[in-house]
């Protein structure tokens, strides 16, 4: 039997579930005072009297307290349409936040009846009939993903994403489809970046200008003006004579235009010593002359290059069509830079070398088929390849090298929506809505961007191509393989960096007069410790309980002395076994202790809030807007202990309900100062890190508090599952996703909270494996 939150009420009670604040727009503001029309006996006989007795004195009428109007409810069915509203009511009831103490309070049994009604009737979800309700909006590569993808595509160490505007954050992460906007500013940067990346990847061969012919240096044509040699009769030629010192490939470039073209291009035939080679169509006009080129193997010696006008004279119209040659350039011989060619260059040019004969569209096609499939992360169509080949040819026809043509085509690919977005089409080629499982290649990308923040590697592509990736065992083995790959740092930096707010370490500024030893090196070391720890959790497939309390960590000399722990060796990072319970687990790492402190001192409120949000998954609602934050100017802190000041939170009932828990959790870590060092005293006062949580759990110091938290693994495993599922799917979670979360949490419990269970559970979940478009019911599996 499923309930929205399967945790028994009793274990919840110690926790103040001051849940997230949500919008009240679902409330039907205009509805009249309760006059239920249905014959639901519970509604009539239990619910309405309860509300009247305990709630309506504040939450009814035209201006209900906190905009919570309980007198608008009309039926259970109507309530099911207002899930977020009733979730809030549920939390307030469960934690006995409401009714307030100075009002009539219901008995436990009365309260439990209403709680059960909300849980089982209002918020109930039938997991068997839910399927997958929402699909992710097409995700643009974010900055980290762009950089990693470029790195893994070409092996170039280049991070153009650092110049991109920051990606906006939604649901705590910057990989959320709907929030990944593409501004014109960013589009511009994508184009710039594509140009810069392809210049790094493709080495252009040397193309020396051998000779440039002015009009005077050319011969032939019907007549000569100051600007050009003009031809108007058929087979008339303009020629350029040159003594080639070296055999090789040369590019012959002509600046030309045509007149009276009447939409018909003028054919211009290149020949060498009278042997015809290639014909191009001159369409450019005198206003904007064009450049036309051919590429030829020429042996050393004297040669005459001819440019012949092949126009058939149009007798009917009696118009004189002309072809004008303004100048000729000979470039070459083409010379490679074998030393300058990078591995990435060689991996692109699988069939080409500059000695190869001209007009090689086949090679361009081969290169593009190989390359674009990886850039687009899927097989590409013949049409897509053809357009790329045409672009290569277009560039070459203007007298640029083949390499330049490939470069430009690659630029186009890297600015195409198929590269910049992770496209998962919702309609088939006829435009009909498609509800479906993920395609093999789409699944490969979902997997690789989840775990690596980058594109799939060859092995994943091959499994996708053979259709085996969906096989549950194959998928499981792939996850295990991917976690062992160094690219798992993508998950560490981007998921852990945001979940644990490590990224915010960059922007905090501990006051150097209070913490003189804090500097940027220490800032980096703090972050590194947590990253290495997280990575080890993954690599060693450890139990998630180690996040709360572990017997190891990673230190270097600097951080060891910061922690006052012995360290042998140099400044390299070492895995250190911890014997003392003072350190161990995320909550005692300097990174998190610092990021949750103010600039001059610790902030028990911030620490408590951090734990509620990121460990317990029960974020407190924001304080009412006009309530000041705790005064923390240093003079006042000196006069009293922080703990004394914080009594304010307990005295004001509107603060107490949440701060009772938040502050207590935070004070449990008061033995760590604002940059995470251990301390026994705070100024003149001994540190008091004891407390009693709502529900009666008492502790003396962080070691005991960690033990209490470890006993709440149900909360923690649910919290990390929700965060990671959000990150993996690139969207916020719906009520329906709770079914997935429940299942993953169950599997975790059965597997001693092994990390792999979490990842595999997510990867094999419905919303990860399926996509449901637009509206309607999902297809039966």
């Amino acid at each position: 039997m499923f309930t929205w939150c399967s945790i028994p009420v009793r274990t919840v009670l110690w926790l103040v579930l001051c849940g997230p604040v949500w919008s009240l727009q679902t409330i039907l503001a205009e509805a009249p005072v309760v006059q239920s029309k249905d014959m639901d006996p519970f509604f009539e006989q239990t619910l309405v009297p309860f509300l009247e007795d305990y709630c309506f004195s504040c939450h009814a009428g035209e201006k209900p307290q906190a905009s919570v109007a309980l007198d608008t409810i009309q039926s259970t069915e109507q309530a099911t349409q207002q899930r977020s509203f009733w979730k809030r009511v549920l939390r307030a009831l469960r934690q006995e936040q409401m009714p307030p103490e100075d009002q009539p309070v219901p008995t436990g049994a009365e309260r439990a009846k209403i709680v059960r009604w909300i849980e089982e009737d209002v918020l109930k979800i039938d997991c068997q009939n839910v399927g997958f309700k929402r699909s992710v909006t097409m995700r643009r590569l974010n900055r980290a993903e762009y950089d990693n993808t470029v790195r893994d595509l070409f092996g170039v160490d280049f991070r153009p994403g650092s110049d991109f505007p920051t990606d906006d954050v939604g649901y705590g992460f910057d990989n959320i489809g709907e929030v990944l906007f593409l501004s014109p500013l960013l589009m511009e940067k994508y184009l710039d970046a594509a140009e810069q990346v392809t210049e790094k990847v493709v080495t252009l061969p040397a193309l020396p200008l051998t000779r440039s012919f002015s009009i005077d240096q050319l011969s032939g044509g019907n007549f000569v003006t100051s600007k050009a040699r003009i031809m108007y009769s058929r087979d008339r030629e303009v020629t350029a004579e040159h003594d080639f010192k070296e055999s090789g490939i040369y590019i012959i470039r002509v600046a030309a235009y045509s007149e009276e073209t009447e939409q018909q291009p003028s054919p211009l035939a290149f020949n060498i010593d009278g042997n015809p080679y290639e014909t191009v169509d001159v369409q450019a006009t005198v206003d904007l002359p064009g450049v036309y080129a051919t590429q030829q193997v020429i042996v050393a010696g004297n040669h005459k290059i001819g440019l012949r006008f092949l126009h058939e004279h149009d007798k009917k119209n009696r118009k004189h069509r002309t072809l004008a040659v303004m100048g000729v350039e000979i470039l070459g011989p083409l010379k490679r830079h074998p030393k300058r060619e990078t591995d990435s260059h060689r991996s692109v040019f699988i069939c080409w070398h500059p000695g190869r004969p001209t007009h090689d569209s086949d090679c361009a096609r081969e290169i593009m088929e190989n390359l674009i499939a990886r850039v687009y992360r899927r097989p590409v169509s013949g049409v897509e390849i053809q357009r790329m080949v045409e672009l290569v040819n277009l560039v070459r026809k203007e007298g640029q090298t083949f390499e330049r043509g490939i470069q430009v085509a690659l630029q186009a690919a890297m600015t195409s929506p198929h590269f910049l977005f992770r496209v998962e089409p919702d309609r088939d080629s006829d435009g009909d809505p498609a509800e479906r499982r993920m395609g093999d290649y789409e699944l490969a990308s979902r997997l690789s961007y989840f775990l690596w923040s980058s594109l799939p590697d060859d092995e994943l592509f091959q499994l996708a191509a053979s259709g085996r990736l969906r096989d549950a065992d194959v998928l499981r083995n792939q996850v295990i393989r991917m976690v062992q790959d160094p690219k798992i740092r993508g998950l560490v930096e981007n998921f852990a960096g945001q979940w644990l707010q490590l990224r915010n370490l960059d922007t905090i500024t501990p006051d150097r007069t209070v913490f003189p030893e804090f500097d940027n090196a220490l800032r980096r070391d703090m972050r590194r410790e947590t990253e290495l720890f997280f990575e080890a959790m993954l690599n060693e497939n450890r139990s998630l309980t180690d996040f709360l309390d572990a017997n190891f960590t990673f230190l270097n000399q600097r951080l060891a002395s910061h922690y006052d722990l012995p360290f042998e060796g140099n400044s390299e990072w070492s895995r250190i076994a911890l014997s003392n319970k003072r350190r161990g687990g995320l909550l005692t790492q300097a990174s998190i202790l610092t990021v949750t402190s103010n600039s001059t001192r610790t902030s028990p409120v911030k620490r408590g809030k951090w734990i509620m949000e990121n460990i317990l998954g029960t974020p407190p609602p924001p304080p009412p807007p006009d309530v000041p934050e705790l005064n923390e100017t240093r003079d006042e802190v000196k006069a009293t202990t922080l703990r004394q000041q914080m009594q304010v939170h307990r005295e004001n009932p509107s603060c107490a309900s949440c701060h009772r828990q938040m502050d207590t959790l935070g004070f449990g870590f008061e033995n760590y100062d604002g940059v995470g060092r251990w301390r026994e005293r705070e100024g003149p006062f001994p540190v008091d890190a004891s407390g009693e949580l709502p529900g009666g759990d008492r502790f003396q110091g962080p070691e005991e508090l960690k033990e209490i938290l470890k006993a709440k693994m149900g909360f923690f495993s649910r919290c990390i599952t929700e965060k990671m599922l959000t990150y993996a799917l690139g969207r916020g979670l719906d009520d329906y996703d709770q079914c997935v979360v429940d299942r993953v949490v169950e599997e975790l419990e059965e597997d001693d909270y092994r990390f792999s269970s979490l990842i595999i559970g997510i990867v094999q979940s419905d919303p990860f494996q399926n996509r449901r478009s637009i509206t309607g019911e999902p297809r039966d599996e």
Partner: protein
Amino acid sequence: MNSRISRRRVLRGIGTAVTLPLLDGMTSFTPGVHASTEDSLPKRMAFIFVPNGIHMPNWTPEKNGTQFELPTTLKPLEPFRKHINVLSGLTLDAGWAHGDGPGDHARAASTFLTGSHPYKTHGADIEAGVSVDQVLAKRLGKTTRFSSLEIGCERGAQAGNCDSGYSCAYSANISWNTSTTPLAKEINPQLLFERLFSAGTKGEILEARRKRQGYRRSVLDLISEDARVLQKRLGSKDQSKLDEYYTGVRELEKRLMLSSREIKTLPGVEKPPHDPEDFGEHMRLMADLMVLAFQGDLTRVATFMVGNAGSNRSYPMVDVTEGHHWLSHHENKPEKHEKISRINQFHITQLAYLLGKLEAAKEGDGTLLDQCAMVYGSGLGDGNRHNHDNLPILQIGQGGGDFQTGRHIQFSENTPLCNLYLSMVQTVDRSVSAFADSTGGLKEMATEV
């Protein structure tokens, strides 16, 4: 790289960076690019946002009309008082909770130029409204290289929650191109410089950049076709993402068409640093670049986000070591009021610097400042009360003669700020009859004949 160069040097560099033909172009536009009917100087519109409200007692002048005294916070604007209007009593009704609970900072930023109540969400179905600068950009930006310019001094949040259930997009952006698409801002002065003046990146010379960009048109043709084909296969939400893509491609195509009007840098010109250490310096550099963009007619519309909503920056340069947001919950303590005022005045001092630059730039028979109509203000009145009425708003510049300035005007309670925006839009396009919750233009703004 360019880390420690003197500010004077940079500015001299930028000053000479703008080549003469373009400056001349201000009055005689390049043929074929500008509509020949345009015989007057272009109007420029800018909107400057400061976070966390203002300490109003030191902001609001006592007297109305022209005979008012500038209060402490506004004192640095004394040299420009004839160019400014202090507007009191204006309201952004959309900023109030309207049943959405906390999140006034996110609402302050997202309503500031949109006047539209933002949909409360961490991400799904983000929606505010089209911002006034974008309404203007559609009209003023057709012929300039950049339809509009979005700049700021603070990077958006990179993790966690921004404000009480609102996606960080609401706190970090004030420009909204469509009701669902905010426009990211450039915060790095060096990158902004490179973008504006086509100076190559990483030491590249202009010629190399030209060469590199030679095939941009072909590239854009190909990817537009990609997008067109793809469009048919996407669901509606995905299509809106592709619309953003299209908008970007169209902007780039326009830029290519106008490439003949590109401003060139001279060899050896130094760029501003990447990440100025001093915040005042950062603001002034961004202001310099905005002025140059106006001067070179690279754009006619700009937004400038001094800080993100709820910014907790400290201001050690004026001896305020506490965070701005933290202070703004002032509990009516005089020492906090005083510190907030100091931050407010620090921002106004940088504004005065900007106005000085605009006034120093001659244009036609007057100055660039005369051609500007700008708005400076916050989306909150008092940072403690988080009120969205009686907002601190300055209107600056006569907008080419459309506005009368040099006054303190007290409007009746709850006059929509959007009425001011409507008045601004109407100086450009008289056919526009409403903007967001406007109830009509502000007659008081118009020049008295």
